[in-house]
């Protein structure tokens, strides 16, 4: 099915509904601070030794998330290097009834 007017109208209706929901949910005030923020602001630089509180969080209190993020970067670079081969050397296990000898 190539598109058509019904699909276009449905897509626009979904977008308008998402817009209305976002405008309704995001306005108004939100609760400001919690107990964790008070503890972080008072004791953050004393316990980890860093003056920058953001560094104290992502390398002191939540260093495991930083390790996981490093692993995600490693896997992404490996995946990009693996996939970036030209067409002549790619995997050719299906039969060729479409063009595959492109430069």
């Amino acid at each position, binding site marked *: 099915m*190539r*598109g058509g007017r019904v699909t*276009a109208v449905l*897509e626009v209706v*979904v*977008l308008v509904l*998402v*817009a209305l929901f*976002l*405008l309704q949910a*995001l*306005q108004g005030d*939100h609760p*400001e*601070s919690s107990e*964790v*923020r008070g503890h*972080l*602001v008072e004791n*953050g*630089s004393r316990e980890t030794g860093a*003056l*920058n*509180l*953001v560094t*104290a*969080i*992502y390398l002191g209190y*939540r260093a495991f*998330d*930083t390790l*996981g*993020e490093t692993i*995600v*970067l490693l*896997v*992404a*670079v490996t*995946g*990009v290097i693996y*996939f*970036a081969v*030209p*067409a002549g050397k*790619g995997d050719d296990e*299906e039969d060729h*009834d*479409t*063009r*595959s000898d*492109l430069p």
Partner: protein
Amino acid sequence: MIWALICLIFLVGLWGVTRKANMVKKVMGLSIANSGIILLFVHYGSLSGTTAPIEGSGRAMADPLPQALMLTAIVVGVCVMALALVLVYRLYLRFGTLDMHRVELGAWKLHD
């Protein structure tokens, strides 16, 4: 009114994902929506203070926790975009076109 602008950025990204047939534009729309959500979190964290969360400032500091979490979100978003773009490149090499509908037709022809 900043939340309305952020809402607009997210809707532009969402429109790019659904209504565009070019696959590179779809991936870029996803990246724009990602940026909008990150801006939303950082904006709501900055409402409870006036300056950067560095010790020795003296004034009320903004919330440091959403900023630290959004660092991870930005890096993960960059990794997802890199992998998505390289997959679009492999699809282009296989089918010769970037149009989503023609790639779908070519894939159905391969399947039969």
